[in-house]
């Protein structure tokens, strides 16, 4: 087989898309599927556009009480006492709870599939006990006849605080004289290291090393070392957190909630409330965005406790300020990164020191940050140190490709500097250094077949890259990024109906169109139309354990389960046809046109045999259960054109193209939507978004008026180029697509700003004041 450099590619419109939707096509290779790669209307579309879809806040139950959570006004304080008696005496109040109403928790690690949680810390985060560690930390909760009564009663709860100095910056928090947030935290050296023995804010220290780093830097032709900072940012999902709980007298707890993983909620609630998981049923409602922020519990166990205390169902909703104050952002960071190259522009060495905010409790995405920082390039010698550091901010949580966006800002900006210094085109540099199959990351893992090189080739061939900029103060930048993706557990059950349709049930909550992508994979195997499959997301009592919708795993892993279910149906239908024809099942073929054929020329279609199930043995239910492990990583390379206002420092993105290796696009519209959505969030992170704290640790911009996510006025129509390097770990070649598109935007925009203005921005967000400061500094 020819090397990738010798093969011929072209960029062309992706069939069925808008003019900005394109794909990279390799000469001689064309798609070969009937359903996969088409664009059917999503199964849940009508409910969504008519407003009939039911979200968590829509739940209404007989006797429903409304709850209100009292939150800390201090960023760091010891709780001396809590007196709830006045609140409990308010007419209309049915229950008041504090941490004392939760079962006690111990320092045990809970494995949530993708990540790990310390149950004691989660208990403390749900309702503070000894200390409050950030403004907005939940302290107590009230259930009453109305939310207004609950709120007024909560104001009567008397909490005596001993206010302590907050620490908000990772470098300060790491210092020996910093206030320590958690007396129980020790530095855990990872992976496979030992634990420290003194209280500290540095919860984890990751260390990776490969080759002879110092010698390689000493021999390098050029070494560039720079420092970078990023601010705390929020996922910005439109739907706030919500939970309604009913603790039945028989001990059964039912929770209706907005979540990315109903089984994750079940596990956390069961553990925190010390009940068997089989006693907890979680009903996942439609979800108005999550992006990683709707995996951990906040309200669910509190609503359940209030329900137990009151004997009534209880609903808790957050408002927007609660969401900003108290739910997981992605961390701010400090990074120092160094890259060395030889005279030919080949990377010879890399070194990184990364400090990520954990927030109040350990758990920042520092490890993936470490593993992603040099992931796009073949770096023969590397050393990476990463630190997970507690600060007085909300406990950080996952956000699309957690940690990778931070480090891409550093690496990709330095790469741009190297290209300029050596006079190399940034596309050529990346083509020369891009990782390929068999290359080893600094953490030691070797890549399977990946499409990093192909994404850069697509950039080179794109109309965007080949078109000149058209005005003053404009610049163009590119940047690449990586995300691992994930596999995990998924279950699908599919019932053949008598009219030849299939009802599919799954446990993966649908955030990005996965009802369609799962149904299409089942339909492809069975040879039926995607519209003939009816998918339903069901509760935790109705399907087998399914991991979170996150990690870009669902179309891959739940898709694999759907394929298995379809193959199970095929096998059962062959047996039914064999009964009809009085032959052995092994003599029956199931062809791609959904027709079964027998040894003597017999033939019957899917719809016809579906009508004969009862007379041949009863209903046919196919089932698929997987724990997928060959998910394949994803790479993306973005092109950003910006125009910078020299008088105000405002950065306007005027053209933007996302190029991404998706393996195989099951439903291209949803793949393009993920690419565009991820890029839009990355653009917001790049130029606008930041948590703004006062010195007292209070968040000053806890609303969408002051925390500015991009609107349609801030974004051009984002163009997409789908690259399809099939993942050998999936029959159709699927890779996850949802996360990597958020990774390159800040670096691509920083590089574009530099080309437009000559100012290098190494601090996010690149907001007008910061850009203007750099422009004025450059003038002076």
């Amino acid at each position, binding site marked *: 087989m020819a090397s990738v450099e010798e093969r011929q590619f072209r960029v062309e419109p992706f069939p069925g898309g808008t003019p900005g939707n394109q794909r990279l096509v390799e000469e001689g290779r064309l798609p070969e599927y009937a359903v996969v790669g088409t664009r059917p209307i999503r199964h849940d579309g009508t409910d969504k556009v008519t407003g009939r879809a039911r979200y968590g806040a829509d739940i209404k139950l007989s006797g429903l009480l409304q709850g209100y959570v009292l939150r800390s006004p201090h960023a760091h304080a010891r709780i001396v006492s809590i007196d709830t008696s006045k609140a409990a005496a308010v007419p209309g109040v049915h229950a008041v709870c504090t941490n004392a109403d939760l079962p006690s928790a111990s320092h045990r690690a809970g494995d949530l599939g993708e990540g*790990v949680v310390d149950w004691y810390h989660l208990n403390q985060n749900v309702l503070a006990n000894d200390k409050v560690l950030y403004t907005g930390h939940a302290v107590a909760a009230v259930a009453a006849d109305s939310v207004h009564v609950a709120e007024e009663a909560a104001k009567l709860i008397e909490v005596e605080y001993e206010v302590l100095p907050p620490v908000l910056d990772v470098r300060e928090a790491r210092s020996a004289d910093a206030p320590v947030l958690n007396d129980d935290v020790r530095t855990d050296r990872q*992976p496979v290291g030992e634990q420290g023995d003194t209280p500290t804010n540095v919860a984890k220290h990751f260390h990776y090393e490969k080759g002879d780093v110092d010698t390689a830097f000493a021999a390098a032709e050029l070494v560039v070392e720079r420092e970078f900072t990023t601010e705390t940012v929020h996922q910005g999902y439109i739907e706030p957190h919500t939970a309604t709980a009913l603790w039945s007298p028989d001990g059964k707890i039912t929770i209706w909630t907005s979540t990315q993983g109903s089984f994750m909620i079940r596990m956390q609630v069961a553990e925190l409330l010390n009940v068997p998981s089989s006693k907890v049923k979680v009903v996942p409602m439609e979800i108005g965005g999550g992006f990683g922020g709707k995996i951990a519990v906040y309200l669910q166990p509190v609503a359940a406790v209030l329900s137990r205390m009151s004997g009534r169902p209880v609903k808790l909703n957050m408002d927007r300020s609660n969401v900003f104050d108290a739910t997981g952002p992605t961390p701010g960071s400090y990074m120092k990164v160094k890259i060395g190259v030889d005279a030919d522009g080949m990377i010879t060495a890399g070194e990184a020191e990364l400090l990520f905010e954990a927030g109040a409790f350990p758990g920042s995405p520092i*490890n993936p940050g470490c593993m992603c920082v040099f992931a796009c390039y073949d770096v023969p010698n590397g050393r990476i140190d990463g630190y997970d550091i507690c600060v007085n901010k909300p406990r950080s949580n996952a*956000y*699309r490709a957690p940690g990778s966006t931070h480090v891409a800002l550093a690496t990709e900006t330095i790469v741009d500097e190297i290209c300029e210094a050596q006079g190399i085109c940034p596309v050529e540099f990346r083509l020369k250094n891009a990782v390929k199959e068999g290359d080893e990351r600094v953490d030691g*893992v070797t890549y*399977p077949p990946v499409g990093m090189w192909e994404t850069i080739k697509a950039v080179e061939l794109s109309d965007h890259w080949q078109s000149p900029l058209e005005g003053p103060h404009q610049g163009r930048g590119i940047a690449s990024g990586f995300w*691992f993706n994930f596999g995990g557990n998924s279950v699908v059950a599919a019932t053949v109906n008598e009219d030849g349709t299939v009802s599919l049930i799954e446990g993966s909550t649908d955030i990005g169109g996965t009802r369609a992508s799962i149904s299409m994979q089942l339909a492809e195997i069975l040879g039926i139309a995607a519209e003939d499959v009816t998918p339903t997301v069901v509760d935790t009592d109705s399907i087998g354990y399914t991991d979170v919708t996150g990690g870009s795993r669902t179309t891959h892993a739940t898709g694999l389960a759907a394929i298995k279910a379809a193959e199970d149906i095929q096998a059962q239908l062959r047996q039914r046809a064999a009964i009809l024809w009085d032959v052995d099942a092994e003599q029956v073929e199931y062809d791609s046109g959904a027709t079964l054929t027998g040894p003597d020329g017999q033939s019957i279609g899917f719809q016809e045999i579906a009508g004969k199930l009862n007379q041949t043995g009863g209903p046919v239910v196919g089932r698929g259960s997987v724990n997928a492990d060959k998910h394949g990583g994803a790479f993306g390379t973005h092109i950003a054109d910006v125009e910078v206002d020299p008088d105000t420092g405002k950065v306007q993105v005027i053209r933007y193209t996302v190029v991404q290796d998706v393996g195989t696009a099951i439903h291209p519209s949803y793949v393009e939507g993920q690419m565009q959505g991820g890029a839009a969030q990355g653009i917001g992170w790049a130029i606008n978004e930041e948590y703004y704290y006062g010195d007292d640790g209070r968040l000053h911009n806890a609303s969408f008026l002051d925390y500015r996510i991009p609107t349609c006025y801030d974004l051009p129509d984002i163009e997409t180029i789908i690259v399809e390097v099939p993942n050998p770990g999936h029959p159709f070649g699927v890779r996850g697509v949802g996360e990597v598109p958020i990774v390159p935007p800040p670096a691509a925009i920083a590089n574009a700003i530099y080309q437009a203005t000559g100012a290098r921005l190494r601090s996010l967000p690149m907001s007008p004041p910061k850009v203007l400061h750099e422009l004025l500094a450059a003038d002076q």
Partner: protein
Amino acid sequence: MPRVHIPAPARDLTGGEVDVEVEASSVRRLIGALDSRFPGFADRVLEEGELKPGLRVAIDGHISPMGVLARLETDSQVHFLAAIGGG
């Protein structure tokens, strides 16, 4: 023989060795063999006979869902990694 990549923080146990070949048919046996050669290795990776919470084993570049029960081939490449949570 399967080849194990020793994470940097554990190289104090291996005298700096980075890649080690170990005769083993499963991850559990591999950890046992490593502990025989490099005493203390098992304590770093196991808790009550299972991989410590948050620790994963990757075989040939793919994180195995089977942990210590995962089977190894003669040419398997094994890595011990911290869990990675996505969004």
